[in-house]
């Protein structure tokens, strides 16, 4: 019996995709199976529009131990220490319910880390909101910060860095990207591929309910005013239970009795069973009757698509499952055998004794639809118009000031206006709400430097080391909007510069691609060129991509129905190696009389600058072009100077240029500076 067009559309499946499903199954799918395909073939889970573009990323390098395809990337940070890290987005849930949307974003990214066998040691977040003169934006901003603060503080992982931007382009669609770092504690890195016919499949963690139903496919649907009404697609997190889950999982992994593990993120049971089966080239049978529930009368569709939080799926070594269950009981967590590994590469779901769903695992998780699209060769009209901008169009100015709309402004007043704009102003109101010192490894406090620096302190063994890691998240989305290729290159270069400014050697990146609809030519032009820019920069700076997240359809239809795309925002999360945490530096001036050096060339370009946007309300011009040779040598000189102890502080010129950078160094060091620009 065929599914109705409404049912098919409701699952976000296109007509030709439905035809493909029928062909692969050799029959029509039932409601549960349709829902499983709907969520697994959404952009959020299978990257059907972006996968062809992601293939061009460099993913191998001498420090990379695990690249894309697993729950998180892993790099070697020296002395046998291995760092897991990843970034993920919770944009759409945060627009509907800011507190829980952001909180569950933190919970989800933490699970991606400890499911690899790593203890989470730090969290960063990259946030973008509309302008603060809008009441709804203020409500979203307050809720998101409080949600991150509540979850991170309760789970005991320090929130040590990140960025916050405010721009009209995000008013209907905030961006909430969370990045987490973890220190591997298990001998072997725990992978997600299931194996061993007959091995029991263990469901561990919280109970299952109807919350967040369809969260995954919802994440790829555009946010309209109507979506405000279909609100139940929001999950509620329990950080206290997650804290116990971290301890219990790490304890379980160290027994060696866990063959594979996967976090239940978007699409819950469907995603974990199909990905674990597909990654292992085997099948999984699961009995929904065994799943601990907190609501009664749930149908297979609801079990399979529920996005209840704090749940994991394990494959245990046959015969040792009770050993694992006892560990979870000690931490007052659910742990039940819910199925087993089978050789046929199928996901077979039972409910009340009958087969509720039976689908080839690879059909769900591996060979999923891919939409290679042609990148428009011609830049869109908005970009061409913007590139015609020239400095000449600005009012005349002298060394004393500038005449803007009839009133004379001096340069001090202009710098103060820039420093006062929310995107550049101090973010202390935000990070003061995050516990950024728990675990006692935070070497540089938030606001003190261009990147966060965390000491590596393994819990077990007498492994005393002065090693550390540095981390940052960066993206100037105005640059990417004006020129996706150069803007994306600049995002990677800025992340590497920020790490070099604390003395850390950049190793690898994770990335969160937040873009509009790829089905629109402008959207795809932005996505394709940005991915090319990331690939070029990662190649040139030797920072391979170890994975990440794609969030498309970030657009809002306002009341009149005109689509408002967000700025294309490829957030780069980069990690760096710190040989000795006592040899790092911040951005504030340290001593009176120290000399101030400008590394690199001062090629003044106002294209896409904060000055143009904030002071003149103009978004135009060509953003600066990154010269990789100069970039490499400037960063090497900076890192070398710090390691030799010649450099007392370092800071990169980002938004607001030289003037704002100098002001920030003065504020950080509570000292002034006398600057002689070449005349």
């Amino acid at each position, binding site marked *: 019996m065929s599914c109705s067009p409404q049912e098919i559309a409701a699952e976000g499946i296109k007509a030709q995709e439905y035809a493909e499903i029928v062909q692969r199954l050799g029959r029509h799918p039932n409601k549960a199976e349709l829902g499983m395909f709907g969520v697994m073939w959404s952009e959020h889970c299978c990257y059907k529009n972006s996968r062809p573009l992601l293939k061009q990323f460099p993913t191998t390098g001498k420090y990379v131990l695990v690249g894309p395809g697993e729950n998180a990337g892993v790099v070697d940070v020296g002395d046998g220490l291995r760092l897991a890290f990843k970034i993920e987005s919770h944009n759409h849930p945060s627009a509907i*319910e800011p507190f829980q949307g952001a909180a569950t974003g933190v919970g989800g990214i933490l699970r991606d880390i400890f499911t690899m066998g790593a203890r989470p040691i730090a969290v960063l977040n990259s946030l973008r909101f509309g302008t603060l003169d809008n009441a709804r934006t203020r409500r979203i901003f307050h809720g998101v910060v409080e949600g991150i603060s509540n979850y991170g503080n309760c789970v005991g992982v320090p929130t040590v860095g990140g960025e916050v931007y405010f721009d009209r382009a995000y008013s209907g669609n905030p961006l909430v990207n969370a990045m987490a770092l973890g220190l591997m504690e298990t001998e072997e890195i725990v992978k997600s591929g299931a194996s061993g016919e007959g091995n029991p499949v263990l469901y561990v963690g*919280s109970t299952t*309910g109807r*919350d967040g139903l369809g969260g995954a496919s919802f994440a790829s649907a555009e946010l309209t005013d109507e979506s405000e009404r279909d*609100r139940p697609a929001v999950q*509620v997190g*329990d950080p*206290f*239970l997650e804290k116990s889950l971290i301890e219990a999982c790490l304890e379980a992994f160290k027994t060696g009795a866990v063959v594979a593990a996967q976090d239940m993120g978007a699409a819950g049971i469907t995603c974990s069973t199909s990905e674990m089966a597909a990654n292992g080239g085997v099948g999984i049978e699961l009995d929904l009757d065994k799943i601990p529930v907190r609501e009664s009368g749930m149908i297979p569709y609801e079990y399979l698509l529920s996005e209840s939080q704090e749940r994991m799926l394990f494959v245990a070594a046959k015969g040792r499952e009770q050993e694992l269950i006892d560990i979870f009981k000690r931490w007052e967590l659910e742990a039940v055998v819910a199925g087993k590994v089978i050789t046929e590469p199928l996901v077979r779901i039972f409910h009340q004794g009958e087969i509720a769903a039976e689908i080839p695992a690879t059909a769900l998780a591996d060979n999923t639809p891919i939409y290679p699209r042609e990148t428009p060769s011609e830049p869109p009209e908005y970009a061409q118009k913007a590139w015609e901008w020239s400095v000449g169009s600005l009012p005349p100015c002298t060394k004393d000031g500038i005449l803007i709309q009839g009133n004379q402004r001096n340069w001090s007043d202009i710098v103060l206006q820039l420093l006062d704009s929310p995107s550049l102003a101090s973010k202390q109101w935000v990070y003061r709400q995050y516990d950024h010192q728990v675990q006692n490894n935070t070497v540089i406090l938030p606001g003190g430097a261009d990147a966060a620096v965390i000491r590596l302190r393994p819990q077990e063994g007498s492994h005393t080391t002065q090693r550390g890691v540095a981390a940052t998240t960066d993206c100037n989305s105005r640059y990417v909007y004006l020129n996706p290729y150069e803007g994306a290159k600049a995002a990677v270069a800025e992340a590497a510069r920020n790490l070099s400014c604390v003395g850390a050697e950049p190793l690898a990146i994770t990335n969160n691609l937040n873009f509009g609809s790829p089905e629109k030519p402008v959207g795809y032009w932005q996505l394709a060129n940005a991915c090319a820019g990331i690939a070029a920069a990662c190649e040139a700076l030797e920072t391979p991509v170890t994975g990440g997240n794609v969030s498309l359809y970030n657009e809002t239809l306002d009341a009149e129905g005109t689509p408002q795309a967000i700025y294309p925002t490829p957030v780069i999360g980069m990690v760096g190696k710190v040989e000795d945490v006592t040899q790092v530096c911040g951005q504030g001036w340290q001593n009176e009389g120290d000399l101030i050096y400008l590394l690199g060339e001062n090629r003044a370009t106002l294209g896409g600058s904060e000055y143009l946007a904030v002071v003149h309300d103009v978004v135009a011009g060509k953003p600066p072009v990154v010269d990789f040779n100069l970039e490499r040598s400037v960063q090497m000189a900076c890192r070398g100077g710090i390691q030799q102890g010649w450099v007392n502080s370092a800071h990169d010129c980002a938004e607001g240029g030289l003037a704002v950078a100098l002001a920030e160094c003065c504020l950080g060091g509570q000292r002034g500076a006398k600057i002689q620009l070449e005349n």
Partner: protein
Amino acid sequence: MAIQFKARIYVTLRPSVLDPAGVAVQSGLHQLGYDSVEGVRIGKYIELQLSAENQTAAEAQLDQMCDRLLANPVIENYCFELDEVPALAVDR
């Protein structure tokens, strides 16, 4: 002449929404030996006074206040009780 009312508002999580606080308190009560306790749900209790023309106007005002601020319709339900405060006992 406006009448003074005393309102008691109960804001609770919608049944389908996980209530971690309720779960933690329930297990706490069980540990204390109160095993028969079930279905613990924790919500907010808000007391306030307001003045309005009459009972229906007060109720309308209260409904609006709950929808716009006191409750989060995404994950919470609300109900309230409204009593006229006798004129002399008006609590200034």
